[in-house]
């Protein structure tokens, strides 16, 4: 492993093409107490305020080179704002973000060379063909003709759009546009790829398809991927590590398995009729219940060997004058993790977010005046 090159004092030195893993090339690593691998992404204390409204609230995280990292949370949690800051489109109010050692606010040009972004909304020129969009991209990134041609051909094949390459993008379906954008994000061989809600608004089949591309991509190349999503199962399926974001803050992070383990054992949901107050007070004292959350008349408990506890739970409910309409037992999902940490389901959060978003829009428009 190459440790680093002590060149120039005070500057991170990057020599493209000389070594395979650019993350190892910073001289700072020589003095670092950590291992020689620099993080692909380092974020500390990142905060973004829009006219008093805090969209991103003091978040810290690191992503290793080659990792597939997920930012999970409801709409309006601050995921896109985070991506916009890390991709140099927005300036943070406080804190720092670094991509392979380059500061996203100060070394914008270097950061831009290293990253590829697939934005949440379609960002294609629909009056150009698919191929022209990719060519445009390659030229903007200063690629030489031969290399560009080759890479454009390659990514078109990867996302199976070779046949439609010469059709205007306005004739593409939603899924095809998305695939084209993912392909475009790869044309200039970025070290870090941001995917902001890559499957938003797509049907289940197309979504599966795109998941497979993302997985394949992460496996076959050493590109670091950051993906945002508000689909829990998407993050669960794709990401090696996720951070759950809510109201601009990180509420939990770790591998999906680890996060689900926190809940411990199984999830038992009891659909109740009647006032559950006494029952909850009673169950709160039980040691074998790890977590307990009541939401919309549904009591969710996590406990080990749930199937053995169901009779006891039903009996306890009857004893407290609560009728049990339905009992459900399952393994915990990330949705439960979210509920555990925030006390709300993701859908509820999104409903209450709309007010927050309006506040944010007001904040942003005010700023422009």
């Amino acid at each position, binding site marked *: 492993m190459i440790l680093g090159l002590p060149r120039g004092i005070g500057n991170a030195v990057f020599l493209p093409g000389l070594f395979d893993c650019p993350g190892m090339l910073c001289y700072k690593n020589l003095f670092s107490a950590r291992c020689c691998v620099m993080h692909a992404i380092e974020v500390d204390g990142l905060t973004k305020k829009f006219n008093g409204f805090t969209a991103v609230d003091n978040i810290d995280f690191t992503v290793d080179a080659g990792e597939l990292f997920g930012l999970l949370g409801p709409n309006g949690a601050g995921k896109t704002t985070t991506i*916009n800051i890390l*991709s*140099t*489109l*927005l300036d943070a109010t406080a804190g720092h973000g670094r991509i392979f050692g380059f500061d996203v606010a100060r070394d914008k*040009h*270097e950061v*831009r*060379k290293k*990253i590829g*972004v697939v*934005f949440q*909304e*379609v*960002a*294609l*020129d*629909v*009056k*150009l063909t698919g191929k*022209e969009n990719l*060519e*445009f*991209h390659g*030229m*903007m*990134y*200063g690629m030489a003709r031969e290399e560009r041609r080759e890479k454009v051909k390659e990514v078109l094949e990867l996302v199976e759009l070779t046949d439609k390459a010469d059709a205007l993008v306005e004739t593409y379906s939603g899924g095809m546009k998305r695939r084209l954008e993912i392909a*475009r994000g790869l044309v200039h061989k970025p070290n870090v790829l941001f995917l902001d809600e890559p499957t938003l608004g797509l049907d289940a089949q197309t979504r599966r398809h795109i998941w497979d591309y993302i997985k394949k991509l992460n496996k076959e190349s050493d590109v670091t991927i950051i993906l945002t999503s508000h689909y829990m199962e998407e993050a669960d399926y794709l990401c090696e590590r996720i951070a759950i974001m809510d109201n601009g803050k990180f509420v939990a992070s770790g591998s999906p398995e680890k996060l689900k383990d926190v809940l411990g054992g199984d999830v038992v949901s009891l659909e109740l009729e009647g006032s559950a107050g006494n029952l909850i007070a009673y169950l709160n004292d039980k040691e074998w219940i790890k977590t307990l959350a009541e939401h919309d008349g549904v009591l969710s408990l996590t406990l080990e060997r749930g199937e053995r506890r169901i009779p006891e739970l039903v009996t306890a409910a009857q004893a407290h004058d609560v009728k049990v309409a339905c009992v459900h037992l399952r393994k915990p999902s990330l949705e439960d993790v979210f509920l555990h940490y925030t006390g709300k389901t993701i859908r509820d959060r999104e409903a209450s977010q709309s007010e927050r978003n309006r506040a944010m829009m007001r904040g942003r*428009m005010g700023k*422009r005046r």
Partner: protein
Amino acid sequence: MIIHRAAIYVLWLRELKRFSRAKSRVVGALAMPLFFLAFLGLGFRKMMIPGVSGGVGYVSFLVPGILGMSLLFSSTFGGLSVLWDKEFGFLKEIMVAPVSRVSIVLGRLAGGVTTTLVQGVLILGVSLFMGFKINTLASLPLAVVFMALISITFLGLGLIFASKMKDMQGFNIVFNFVIFPLFFLSGVLYPLDNFPQWLRYVSYVDPLTYGVDGLRGVLIGVSSFSVIFDLVMMTAMSLVMIFLGAYFFEKSEAV
């Protein structure tokens, strides 16, 4: 200041491709000035307009003005087209690329100047069939220079507004309170000598005044100022506008 030539080229190329594919846009951009020419030219044909010297008919007086008008409209729209890119998300694709903001402005400028010049030359060509007579053919290159300077000036103006606006909603305000006054103040339709003195002073801050006057001087040999003075003023104004446009564009946020 870093210039990325490949980026400027590809931004220019994109503009040209979009232009050549939007046939209806081209036809629409040509139709209005030609209608202006045809109907105003026919309608005022017999009239003696004070300030238009006897040897020059109204059509000849009108053609350079209509050219200026068409350049004013299409260039301001060209500058404002950043807002369309913002609306359709494509601006983010441009802004996230490792390309200096100056190069992005230059690329847009190159594309805008090219497409508006094509329109201007087409209008000039058609006007020849409507009875317009150019002074000498040798003056054509200088006319193109004036057209390019007008185009650059108002592309810059459009860019300033695009950088300050969030979406196309403010478009009508810009159109009614900026573009139209600039159009009327520049003396496209009538000689500025007929304005009361105070209004003439106002017209002196309108860049198009010098553009239209310069085009008249070059094409029909009649102008209020000297052609050299018009040229100097247009050059200065285009530089100021493009500098301001680039400055505000640099400051604006893509999201």
